[in-house]
């Protein structure tokens, strides 16, 4: 009897509350769409402007017409760049550097993360924090001492590092390894401890536990880390600008700037085209691996 009365009393209050909830929700949705729209415009205008400009001839770019419209569309910029051996060389260098850097990064950071997340050893917690702190040092502080070190190394050993594309394979991992290790530590930590204990009892070594259990289970995190490493090495500008100078050693971002700007002459059409073409590979990779990337970034949010 008593409980029935309570329900009767509560019923009208609840109805009112549901109403106000859905009104709140509707407003929240409107605001979120407004700001999302604003943000989309903000981030999509530059690539759109790049696309428009890349379809114009130099004459049309410098003409005093509406800059947001193409009156005489032309593919000449694309033809010029894609038939230029120099541009293809930049592209090739970028691809080579990125693939190597991703490989090196993964080979170091995955085992490192596994060790730091799972193998309790003296100082492992401190080391894990240290890895993260490394990432906080701004790279623009380091290029001068690094340049000096590499130059000295060249003098002492006779192995040239300055102005060689492979110097980037030494430098980029200092940026990618800490962050990827950090991502993977987080992902590995979300794997229940019983899983590796079960594997150990089943007779797996640490290495087998890593390769046969942890890597497959942590695949989304692994892909997120891979994408990150690729993006960092593909888009890196400061280090290649400092460490490489000969045109056959340049990567794409630096190559575009140094070869398409001659003195005070800016070849805007080709610069925009080059930037657009350079943005394509990460874009394609994101599109294919987006689901994995999101799953990786939200690891541990839900129970596996």
């Amino acid at each position: 009897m008593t409980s029935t009365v309570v329900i009767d009393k509560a019923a009208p209050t609840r109805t009112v509350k549901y109403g106000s909830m859905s009104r709140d929700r509707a407003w929240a949705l409107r605001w979120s769409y407004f700001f999302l729209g604003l943000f989309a415009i903000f981030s999509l205008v530059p690539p759109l402007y790049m696309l428009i400009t890349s379809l114009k001839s130099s004459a049309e770019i410098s003409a005093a017409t509406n800059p947001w419209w193409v009156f005489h569309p032309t593919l000449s910029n694309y033809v010029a760049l894609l038939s230029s051996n120099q541009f293809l060389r930049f592209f090739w260098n970028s691809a080579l550097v990125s693939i190597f850097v991703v490989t090196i990064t993964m080979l170091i950071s995955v085992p490192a993360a596994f060790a730091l997340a799972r193998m309790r050893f003296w100082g492992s917690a401190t080391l894990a924090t240290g890895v993260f702190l490394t990432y906080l040092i701004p790279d623009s502080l380091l290029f001068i001492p690094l340049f000096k070190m590499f130059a000295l190394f060249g003098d002492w050993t006779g192995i040239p590092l300055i102005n060689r594309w492979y110097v980037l394979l030494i430098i980029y991992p200092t940026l990618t390894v800490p962050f990827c290790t950090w991502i993977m530590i987080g992902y590995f930590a979300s794997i229940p401890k019983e899983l590796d204990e079960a594997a150990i009892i089943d007779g797996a070594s640490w290495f087998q536990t890593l390769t046969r259990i942890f890597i497959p289970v942590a695949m989304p995190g692994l892909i997120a880390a891979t994408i990150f490493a690729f993006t960092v090495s593909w888009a890196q500008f400061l280090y290649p600008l400092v460490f490489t100078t000969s045109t056959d050693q340049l990567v794409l971002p630096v190559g575009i700037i140094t070869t398409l700007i001659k003195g005070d002459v800016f070849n805007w059409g080709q610069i925009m085209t080059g930037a657009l073409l350079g943005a394509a590979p990460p874009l394609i990779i994101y599109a294919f691996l987006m689901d994995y990337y999101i799953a990786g970034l939200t690891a541990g949010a839900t129970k596996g």
Partner: protein
Amino acid sequence: MADVALRKVIKRYDDVEAVRGIDLDIADHEFVVLVGPSGCGKSTTLRMIAGLEDITDGDIIIGGDVVNDVPPKDRDIAMVFQNYALYPHMTVAENMSFGLRLKHYPKSEIKTRVTEAARMLDITDLIDRKPKQLSGGQRQRVAMGRAIVRNPKVFLFDEPLSNLDAKLRVQMRIEIKKVHQKVRTTTVYVTHDQVEAMTLADRVVVMNHGRIEQIGTPNDLYHNPATRFVAGFIGSPAMNFVPCRLEDVAGRLHIRLTDRIAFQLPPSRATRYQGVARNEKLLLGLRPEHVTEAKAYPEPGIEAFDAVLDVTEPMGMETLIYFTLEGAQICGRVNPNAGARDGGPLRLAVDLNNMHLLNEVTGAVL
């Protein structure tokens, strides 16, 4: 298959002693259950047998070999975890065969063993599914299957049924017992549930505060508990404890509960407790089934008294009654037709032939 022995095993974390010197002999083929409240050291003990925890001091012996420094994979044990710990990216068959594949068993042998175990556990239809597609009970079966195919010396179970709902737990309990009857592998099973311990075990090891309180068969522990902890832990509803004193009335030994209520002890008990000091603070331990409605005819050792019930709980085949005596809540089991009702009076009888007498200070059963 092998016997397992623990010799003065101690586990110390920094300044906490989780396991304080355990001696335990487990015979070949035996099913031993470690039971106790959380934090009593039972899981730590199991993990030390598995090799997942180092032991601080003492020896662990499996099949005659001291394995203190032997890594888990070389101890030839299999373990079933509370959260199943199935490899999520592998199918049921791959999960079960993982250990065998690591040891490079021939494919045909692996297939035979997996098929055999799957049939025993009734999961043949699920063999190609991923753990995600299985229910809790099915996952637990797979976890057991993974242990069975290895054909190890010892099975270790770490609260394997705690994640299941009550009904499934009862079902899987029977399942585990059946499996043990078939494979006869030495088993150490950890649980906090005394019903699980009683139903599964050949022998139960009751642990508390990192020590073994008592080891015995389920019936032994139930009828002859050694300490107050065991007496109160084993059995559901739990044993009643009432403060009491011994008294000599007209040359016969009596037990006095309140100013009004004192019972004469039956001859067997009287001889047993004759030597106990009369001024000692004691506890009368009585199981609920020994507190019943008064019978029409008297029997030796069965003493009647009147009580006013606080609460009654009809269970169908019996009614649980609760009343208060000297500040202690007493639970009894009466016939549903005995006329017990909330707040009502009832003439009750206690069976002193099955009583226990405990020292209130030391908790020892006298």
